[in-house]
């Protein structure tokens, strides 16, 4: 499929693109073919509202996003210079109103992203033909709209979106025996079969005939078979499932919720897209840092002309601005990459460096290894934000960048600077990054009370759920499940269960 806009790049931009692409390749960046298109601000904001795609299924939240972006743009509060999509070929959209300096900066930046999309492992399971897939989703949803009515479909999508983040971020990367089609919906049907139920046959290992009684002793096999039968029986008696808590609530609903065919399909669309977008959240700091590192490197070493300097510096520093309340992923990312490069150039790593107690020596530590560039390429090939921060954030870095952790003061209802200790900052940052800083929620029982109720468990880790929103979410979840829904969580430091039976909410403190 070609793109929606089909606008060829103007001559002068095409020349720039070729030049910049050349630099990018010379630096060793490795990317899919990258196609640039120039959009006017309305089109670009539309694409941005659609999460980077020219076509999405109809839904009001895109309109809301668009409205907000357009207002922000027309009041001069914010500006999107570019959008780039993780596809093969990579599509990147440039804002028509960008100055030539901006276009050069942005193109260099885009090549950083494209390299990252292609090489970072967290993107390896994403669908590179997502442009087509999104259009396909749009036409499927449109078909349901024309058949079942806009309101019905919209209401259902609203309900699905409420739990769209209840997916298993790591699932695409784990090969399980019953993993077939965890992500792709088209192969999903196979999995809906009860094939996932464990076999009652004992495990037999391959063996030559004469060895068989030793490798697969009959009495052991018998014992295993008995145990499995007993397990199955007790599970049957309890009539509860799933076997173990399931993180992918959406998948659980797809398998067990009483959905109509079209609802099933819409839910699987939402799930597909959630899995597609998930890696971008998991690698925001790295991805933006990597792209910024490369635009900065290419601009300052190769591309920048004298006349571009002021504007480039202005816009670059604008993007890198920090604020007390928000960690700028661009800034954190680029600085960490530079820090890593410097440390590996100077050999400031490894046991010898770590064990050195003398600050003076450490500061002047320089073994002239020159491994920096190579190291950051490795980093982008292996890490995601969590492991990136975990491995490379150093006390020196935190101090240099005036980082602090902040915490909510319940009495003052305000956020306060909590600490400037390295361990605290790192812990806080990792907490915020883990699961996107969202609560961990599992399906623990699909037949709660043996009444077909859904029972979710919030794995409490010190932060309570926002209650009003949790109730609304339960209301939406109930629309999908069709039976009462419950979530076990902690309210005011005491275990509690919030329930919704289709009419009203109930909060029960758990007396256990």
């Amino acid at each position: 499929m070609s793109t929606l806009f089909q606008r060829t790049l103007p001559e002068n931009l095409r020349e720039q693109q070729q030049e910049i692409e050349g630099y990018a390749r010379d630096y060793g960046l490795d990317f899919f073919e990258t196609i640039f298109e120039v959009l006017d601000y309305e089109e670009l904001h539309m694409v941005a509202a659609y999460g980077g795609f020219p076509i999405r299924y109809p839904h009001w939240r895109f309109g809301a996003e668009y409205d907000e972006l357009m207002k922000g743009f027309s009041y001069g509060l914010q500006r999107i210079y570019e959008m780039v999509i993780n596809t093969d070929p990579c599509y990147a959209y440039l804002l028509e109103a960008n100055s030539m300096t901006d276009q050069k900066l942005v193109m260099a930046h885009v090549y950083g992203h494209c390299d990252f999309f292609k090489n970072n492992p967290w993107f390896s399971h994403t669908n590179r033909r997502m442009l087509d897939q999104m259009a396909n989703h749009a036409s499927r949803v449109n078909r349901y709209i024309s058949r079942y009515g806009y309101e019905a479909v919209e209401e259902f999508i609203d309900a699905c979106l409420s739990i769209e983040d209840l997916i298993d971020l790591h699932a695409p990367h784990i090969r399980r025996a019953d993993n077939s089609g965890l992500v792709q919906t088209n192969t999903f049907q196979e999995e809906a079969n009860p094939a996932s139920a464990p076999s009652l046959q004992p495990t037999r290992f391959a063996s030559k005939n004469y060895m068989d009684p030793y490798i697969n002793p009959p009495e052991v096999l018998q014992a295993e078979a008995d145990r499995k039968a007993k397990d199955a029986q007790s599970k049957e008696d309890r009539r509860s499932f799933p076997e173990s808590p399931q993180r992918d609530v959406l998948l659980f609903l797809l398998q067990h919720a009483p959905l109509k065919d079209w609802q099933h399909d819409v839910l699987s669309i939402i799930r597909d897209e959630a899995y597609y977008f998930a890696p971008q959240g998991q690698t925001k700091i790295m991805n933006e840092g990597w792209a910024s590192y490369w635009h900065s490197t290419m601009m300052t070493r190769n591309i920048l002309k004298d006349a571009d300097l002021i504007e480039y510096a202005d816009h670059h520093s604008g993007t890198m601005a920090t604020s007390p309340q928000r960690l700028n992923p661009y800034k954190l990312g680029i600085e960490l990459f530079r820090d890593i490069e410097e440390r590996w150039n100077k050999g400031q790593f490894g046991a010898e460096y770590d064990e050195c107690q003398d600050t003076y020596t450490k500061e002047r530590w320089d073994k002239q290894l020159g491994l920096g560039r190579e190291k950051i390429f490795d980093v982008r090939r292996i890490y995601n934000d969590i492991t990136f921060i975990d491995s490379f954030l150093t006390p020196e870095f935190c101090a240099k960048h005036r980082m602090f952790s902040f915490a909510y003061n319940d009495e003052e209802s305000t956020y306060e600077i909590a600490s400037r200790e390295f361990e605290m900052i790192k812990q806080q940052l990792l907490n915020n990054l883990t699961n996107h800083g969202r609560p961990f929620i599992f399906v623990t029982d699909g037949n709660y009370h043996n009444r077909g109720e859904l029972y979710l468990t919030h794995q409490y880790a010190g932060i309570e759920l926002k209650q009003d929103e949790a109730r609304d979410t339960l209301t939406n979840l109930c629309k999908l499940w069709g039976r009462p829904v419950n979530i076990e969580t902690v309210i005011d430091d005491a275990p509690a269960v919030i329930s919704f039976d289709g009419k009203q909410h109930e909060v029960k403190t758990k007396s256990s």
Partner: protein
Amino acid sequence: MSRSIDQDLSRFKNIIRGQVRDNLKKYITHSEMLGRKGRETVSIPVPNLNVPHFRHGNKGSGGVGQGEGDVGQPIGKSPQEGDGQGQAGNEPGSHIREVELSLEELADLIGEALELPHIVPKGDDTIRSVKDRYTSIRQTGPDSLRHFRRTYKRALRRQISSNDYNPLNPVVIPMREDERFRSWKSIPEPHANAAIIYMMDVSGSMTDDQKSIVRTEAFWIDVWIKKHYQGVERRYIVHDAVAHEVDEETFYSTRESGGTRISSAYHAMKAIIDRDFPPNDWNIYGFQFSDGDNWGEDNQDCLSLLLDNLLPVCNLFCYGQVDSPYGSGDYIRELKKINDDWEHLILSEIESRDAIYDSIKEFLGTGK
């Protein structure tokens, strides 16, 4: 090219509009909106439309920031939302979205909510603009306006009558005198104009609270009447024992003390009508707000002015009596005496802020 986002945008706006309509009663009685009024639009804060998710609450949440500051220093109520920057304590739910509605849309909404009949402007419309229509024919004119068919018809007739016409070789050649041209007639387009005259009692017994009620009502009245007329002129009169014509700003901010003589305001209104708004050309609306604490002897003068000079020329004359802790509120009883004879005299008692809704409905519910 029609873009697919337009559909989503208009759907979103419809949802918002639905929200505004559902909460209109709240918006109508709250004066905070008035501050949000632009020239053409009003921005209305609506609770952000968000898809609910399981999210962390504030308690126990935190994040990482950069910058100066000591431990314990507050940095804000809620951290700004970073793009996917996973800060616990993001509060999308508390984020208030401002929606801009045009005054026209807003008028439609209150019309719907209050079930107001549309105003039928009274008969004598002012002639405001003139439109040209090409409906007639002349013998002279520019070539571009030449009426081809008529010209050839005349040429044919002339040739037949002068025996120049040969049916075997039907050549018709128009001459100068055959030519006919389209011509225009100027058609006056009637436009109804409205004049709204607000009168307010600013005697000592009217407190700020009452004034704010008046202000809120006047806002909605403006919105509704403006919707129905091309041109709306507004005049403001404040009075205690004497009346002054003032501008809008002064109208709401003046604070005077002293007695109350409502007839002074009626005199002023009459003067304005005589000077600026010939009743034949204008739809005149009078809105009077007072706590009804008129000086006893003045009542008779007021009634006669109303009956003789004002009521006959007004589309609508509304008297809103706000409940004042000081006023006796007698005046409305006087007006009730004549209320039966004049159906476009509307009386309304506004006891509190919450009564604004009903009182607007009373005022504008007549369709005049």
